[in-house]
């Protein structure tokens, strides 16, 4: 530690407003990383105190107690005690407690105090406490606790001034370290009761507004209806704003590529820049608006306190298929794109439930599958009415969505059956007070997720996209060759080689070939099919559909649709699984099981459809 900088650790119960306090203290100057080997986030920020001293603030995961079954709590304890390798012990601990929920939070304050390090208690959400008529005798609390107590309002500009002044002053003296044994742990509750009786007056245990809202939000019928409406609106917003922005970015890069085409000399370099680099960047950055729009809503739901309510309503249903109520929002996000879905599983605290959710998330029908579905359905399924009411094409599309959901349920159920750890994992979820989301906290959350995606994934995805381009381009066709260039490339050879594997599914070599670039991004399968069938002009329109309908039977089309519903695509998803679980093993498991499921389902579809046609 240099003489003029201070290392501060921020700890507190979940829902104590700790992150808002961290944001208020440090502003946007934050660094987010992971602790080595685990997926627990490490957030660090800094600010300069009025005295000119630099304060380095470490935001530790929210913790209820040090009895630590979860990796977050273990890390929190190790860091505070100075036992975490590569992490210096903090000079000062700021313990954040919600002033409206002291009965729960004071217990953890006492646990932190017993570590025997300098502690300052930040009584947060003092505005809400005053509003509810809660009176806290701060001098008395400070006297009884033996640590400095400072009032804060983390969501208000200037609401942490007193805390900054206190931290900038002399370091408080540490309380004596006490041993951690079951008997003394049990006495903590008695201490809390005594503290509460002496220093806190509460007219009412809960906020009236929370009681009123929960009466409806958790109602068996009204609550579920509200949830359905909220989700419907979120999806409308994602498709209405995220999708057009994604298309805009894709088109923007296509335009850039087109511009480069006029500048660069003809040759493989030009081709690489246009199709490999700009095509790849367009694909990767095209995900960004959908991801940001989805995360905007997820953050709003999280900050407002609604997310745990949704988890409460759906927990029982999710448990029956081996998941948890908290899996619902990530899985729903996966209907737009599996990437934000998998990133969103961070809100699932239990590692086993989180992994199960990550494994089934790619089975949800993401928006990138729609172009493929649209092409094949348009080409092979007649637009006639069934039961005089429904359009057959719509029914098939709906069936594909259902297949994804049923598949995910089945896989979740199987995971539950075969996993070694069959112990009971708890829900034990706190439903916090409802709050109005703050612009600053939502903005910082969005910024964090956006940069994680761009920094950690763009490189991998871009490299793979360029690789895909290379194998689809080289070697160049011999002079005088007829037929599209891709037929002579590595991808062409690979396609013909793999065709033996895919023949039982009814795929010809052209389809097999199109599956290779589809691994980069599913929707490119359409463009590749257009190339191999040498369809000129716009691939989206009638031309390609007509060519397909003339080249393979209905059974093959159905089999291909089913393949796309389950297949292990795209590689961006696999890259996110690698990053979020920190394990290649999980990537291999995801890839293999989805390949097996897709192969089996397509095989059955093809063979059955052939019997009937």
């Amino acid at each position, binding site marked *: 530690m240099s003489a003029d900088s201070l290392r501060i650790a921020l700890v507190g119960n979940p829902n104590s407003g700790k992150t808002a306090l961290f944001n208020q203290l440090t502003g946007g100057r934050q660094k987010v990383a992971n602790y080595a080997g685990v997926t627990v986030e490490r957030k660090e920020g800094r600010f300069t105190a009025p005295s000119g001293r630099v304060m380095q603030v470490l935001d530790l995961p929210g913790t*209820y*107690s040090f*009895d630590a*079954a979860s990796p977050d709590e273990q890390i929190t304890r190790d860091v505070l005690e100075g036992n975490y390798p590569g992490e210096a012990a903090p000079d000062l601990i700021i313990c954040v407690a919600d002033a*409206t*929920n*002291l*009965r*729960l939070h004071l*217990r953890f304050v006492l646990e932190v105090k017993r570590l025997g390090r300098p502690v300052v208690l930040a009584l947060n959400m003092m505005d809400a406490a005053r509003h509810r008529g809660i009176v806290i005798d701060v001098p008395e609390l400070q006297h009884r606790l033996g640590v400095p107590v400072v009032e804060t309002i983390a969501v208000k500009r200037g609401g942490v001034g007193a805390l900054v002044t206190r931290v900038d002053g002399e370091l408080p003296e540490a309380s004596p370290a006490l041993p951690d044994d079951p008997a003394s*742990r*049990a006495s903590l*509750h008695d201490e809390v009761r005594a503290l509460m009786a002496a220093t806190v007056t*509460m007219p*009412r*245990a*809960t906020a009236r507004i*929370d009681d009123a809202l*929960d009466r409806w939000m*958790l109602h*068996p*019928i009204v*609550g*579920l209806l509200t949830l359905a409406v909220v989700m419907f609106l979120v999806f409308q917003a994602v498709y209405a704003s995220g999708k057009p922005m994604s298309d805009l970015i894709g088109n923007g890069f296509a335009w850039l590529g087109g511009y480069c085409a006029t500048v660069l000399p003809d040759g493989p370099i030009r081709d690489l820049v246009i199709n490999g680099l700009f095509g790849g960047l367009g694909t990767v950055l095209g995900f960004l608006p959908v991801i940001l729009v989805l995360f905007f809503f997820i953050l709003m739901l999280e900050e407002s306190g609604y997310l*745990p309510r949704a*988890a*409460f*309503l759906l*927990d*029982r*249903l999710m*448990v029956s298929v081996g998941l948890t*109520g908290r899996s619902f929002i990530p899985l729903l996000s996966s209907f737009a794109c599996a990437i934000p879905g998998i990133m969103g599983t961070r809100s699932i605290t239990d590692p086993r439930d989180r992994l199960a959710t990550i494994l089934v998330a790619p089975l949800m029908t993401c928006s990138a599958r729609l172009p493929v579905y649209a092409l094949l359905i348009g080409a092979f399924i007649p637009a006639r009415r069934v039961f005089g009411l429904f359009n057959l094409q719509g029914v098939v599309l709906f069936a594909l969505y259902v297949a994804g959901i049923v598949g995910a349920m089945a896989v979740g159920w199987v995971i539950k059956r075969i996993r070694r750890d069959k112990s*009971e994992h*708890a*829900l*034990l*979820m*706190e*439903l916090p007070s409802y709050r109005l989301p703050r612009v600053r906290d939502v903005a910082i959350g969005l910024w964090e997720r956006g940069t994680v995606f761009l920094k950690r994934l763009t490189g991998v995805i871009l490299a793979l996209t360029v690789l895909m381009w290379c194998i689809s381009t080289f070697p160049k066709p011999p002079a005088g060759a007829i037929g599209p260039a891709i037929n002579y490339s590595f991808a062409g050879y690979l396609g013909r080689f793999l065709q033996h594997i895919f023949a039982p599914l009814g795929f010809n070599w052209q389809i097999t070939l199109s599956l290779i670039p589809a691994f980069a991004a599913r929707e490119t399968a359409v463009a590749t099919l257009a190339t191999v069938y040498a369809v000129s002009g716009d691939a989206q329109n009638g031309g390609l559909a007509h060519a397909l309908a003339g080249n393979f039977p209905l059974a093959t089309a159905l089999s291909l649709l089913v393949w796309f519903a389950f297949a292990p695509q795209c590689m961006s998803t696999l890259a996110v699984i690698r990053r979020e679980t920190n394990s290649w093993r999980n990537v291999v498991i995801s890839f293999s099981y989805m390949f097996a499921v897709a192969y089996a389902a397509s095989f059955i579809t093809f063979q059955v459809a052939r019997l009937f046609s």
Partner: protein
Amino acid sequence: MWLATCTECEKRIQCEPFLFRSVTTVRLSDLPKGACAVVERVEDAHANDLIAQRLRDLGFVAGERVRLVARGPVGADPLLIQIGSTRFALRRAEAARVTVQEDVA
């Protein structure tokens, strides 16, 4: 017999003099919706029961008042339990570890 106000739900409840107070000991998971009770203890479902330990850490200790606020829409699971100012969602199996003395009105 006299009337007192329940500190959790602000309902007027009938109480009997302490010695004759009629209480029934039930599992938290068996409380009806809206009922108030006092925690008696948390029982370990098996040796080294981390869930029971966590419940105790969260404040489910003898003498604390709890209220069953809501129940999930499917199979009345999970349960929403208020303890102090905090609301926890517990699955039935978790709540079954807590024995409580129910106030009998």
